[in-house]
């Protein structure tokens, strides 16, 4: 299919229309999920640090003589170790440390920023050394004596390397999951389109077969939505065929109705009851009437190259005509041969093709001295059909006239006059060409090119 065909395909449209929402879904969904992951991770980090803060505050004791100190076991042993990344300190006011974890001293971590009493803060500190940390700080007012308060600031820090890595890992997991899902969804969409549109492809294929005459009806099992279309087309084809048949039968009846009286006239004239010249004149007129009837009926009953005109197996047709012509021309002892492969088909109505080949072969038999030869050669999308005889050949300068309407080359050979003109018309109606030529061995050759099927 050319570019234009692709752009116009239903499948392309559906694919495009389906892809945009899916992409949007994955982008927005991914972003939201990413946010949620980050928030959840932050919240759980904050919760963890808050828990340590609550553990620390429960250890604080005040003694009027010794001031503040921590009493009891630390809320988590991790505070006592260096490598855990967890550190904490407690300050009186904003700057005076009265307790700090060993790691706080070892890594020289910064003091918290100033907080008002009763205020807390959670944030990430982007430290160049030793590492980034999450910080939770809380400033409380500690009642050391009735109505006398001292501000205590708690700071809990957790090295956030693990946290970031976790978030990154979760993101990678999410992204790869989303991509896998996306690929699956696109594949599913493609499959759905394929199976959904298959009936359309099938009907297109069947229509092609119908057009080329391979089949006479749309016979496939289509889904309901298309079945109705197929049935409508079928009944249209049937109606057309029935109409052509009715028309042809009507013409045949007309031919019968006109020609039988003409036969009566002719045979009566031969009984010799009228003067010879009168009888001859009347007989000539009867002959003219007959030729006109024949010519116009033959033209009128042509099916032509209409859609689904049909498909003709040339070898079979030539075989039938060979047997028939051998009987008709029995006295002449002619050799009638044909050279046609079994798989040569032309796209033409069967009756039209029979008229064409019958007339041409019969003409060749009338003129042949001893032999008639028929040959069909496929050429790309066409079939070249050659019918030649070893007779005298076409009279020089008369070839062009022979295929014209109503011109007779030889008054003595009945049916010869209109024969080639009719053949030429039938061939052209079906999209073919007719040429008259000299056969290599002398004699006439009729070349007919027809669309292959």
């Amino acid at each position, binding site marked *: 299919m050319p570019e234009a065909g692709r752009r116009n395909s239903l499948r392309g449209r559906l694919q495009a229309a389906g892809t945009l929402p899916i992409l949007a879904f994955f982008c927005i969904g991914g972003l939201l999920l990413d946010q949620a992951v980050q928030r959840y991770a932050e919240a759980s980090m904050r919760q963890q640090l808050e828990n340590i803060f609550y553990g620390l505050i429960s250890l604080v004791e005040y003694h009027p003589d010794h001031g503040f100190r921590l009493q009891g076991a630390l809320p988590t042993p991790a505070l006592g170790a260096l490598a855990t990344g967890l550190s904490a300190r407690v300050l009186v006011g904003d700057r005076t440390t009265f307790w700090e974890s060993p790691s706080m001293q070892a890594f020289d971590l910064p003091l918290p920023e100033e907080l008002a009493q009763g205020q807390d803060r959670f944030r990430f500190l982007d430290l160049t050394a030793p590492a980034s940390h999450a910080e939770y700080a809380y400033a409380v007012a500690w009642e050391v004596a009735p109505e006398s308060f001292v501000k205590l600031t708690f700071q809990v820090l957790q090295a956030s390397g693990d946290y970031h890595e976790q978030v990154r890992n979760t993101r990678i997991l999410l992204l790869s999951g989303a991509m896998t899902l996306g690929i699956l969804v696109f594949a599913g969409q493609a499959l759905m389109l394929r199976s959904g549109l298959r009936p359309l492809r099938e009907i297109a294929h069947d229509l092609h077969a119908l057009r080329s005459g391979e089949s006479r009806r749309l016979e496939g099992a289509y889904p309901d939505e298309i079945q109705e279309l197929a049935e409508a087309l079928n009944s249209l084809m049937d109606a057309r065929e029935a109409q052509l048949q009715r028309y042809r039968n009507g013409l*045949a009846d007309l*031919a*019968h*109705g*006109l*020609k*039988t*009286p*003409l*036969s*009566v*006239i*002719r*045979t*009566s004239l*031969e*009984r010799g009851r009228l003067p010879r010249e009168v009888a001859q004149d009347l*007989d000539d007129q*009867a*002959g003219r009437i*007959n030729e006109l009837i*024949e010519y116009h009926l033959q033209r009128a*009953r042509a099916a032509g190259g209409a859609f689904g005109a049909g498909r003709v197996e040339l070898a079979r047709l030539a075989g*039938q*005509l060979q*047997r*028939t012509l051998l*009987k*008709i021309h*029995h*006295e002449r002892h002619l050799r009638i041969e044909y050279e046609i492969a079994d798989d040569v088909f032309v796209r033409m109505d*069967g*009756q039209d093709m*029979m*008229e064409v*080949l*019958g*007339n041409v072969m019969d003409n060749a038999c009338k003129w042949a001295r001893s032999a008639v030869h028929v040959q069909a050669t496929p050429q790309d999308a066409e079939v070249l059909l050659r019918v030649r005889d070893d007779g005298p050949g076409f009279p020089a300068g008369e070839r062009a006239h022979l295929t014209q309407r109503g011109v007779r080359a030889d008054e003595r050979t009945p*049916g010869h006059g209109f024969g080639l003109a009719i053949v030429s018309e039938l061939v052209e109606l079906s999209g073919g060409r007719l040429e008259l030529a000299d056969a290599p061995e002398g004699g006439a050759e009729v070349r007919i090119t027809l669309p292959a099927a």
Partner: protein
Amino acid sequence: MRILIVEDEPALLESLSEGFTRDGHVVDGSSEGTEALYMGQEYPIDAAVIDLGLPGMSGMEVIRELRKAGRDFPILILTARDRWEDKVEGLEAGADDYLAKPFHFEELRARMNALLRRAGGFATPKLKNGPLELDTAAHRLEMDGEEIKLTTFEYRLMEYLMMNVGKVVSKLELTEHLYPDDAERDSNVLEVMIGRLRRKLDPHRDTQMLETLRGRGYRLKQLADA
């Protein structure tokens, strides 16, 4: 020769019957398929002219049934439908030749004679047997190049014997082929006719070319070329 003509147009049937009768044939005419089939099966027909466009049983069916019943006399189709499809169908059904309406009786006669000759095994219009030569076109009999004058009935008798040369032809067969159905069938007349023909062919009773086989019939001998 006995010819069956099947044609539903009365005027045409009449003029064809008249034409063939004038030529010395016996004609059975019918305008309807079923009757024609009966005649073709039951009568000793030598050839038939059948119109395809018959009311009731079509000409094509009549031909098929006749061939199916083993009747192999030559059949010529007449039809106004001159499509090749009809010609092919007719000849494949078992007909031997084809003539499109309207036609000249002369052409029908020529084709009919050709079919009859072909059925008798002769290739040309002139039937030869030794010194005898029967011209079926001119209705002339010659022996050693000299014409022997024959009456119409004698010619018909001679033609039938020539078509069946070397074979024994019974009296019944001869009367059936040479007399119309309703004619008086007097075997004495036939014997007289045979006697007259024999005197013309063999005046000195030396060749004995026309034999009488007691109780079986007559035979025209196959003669050596002169």
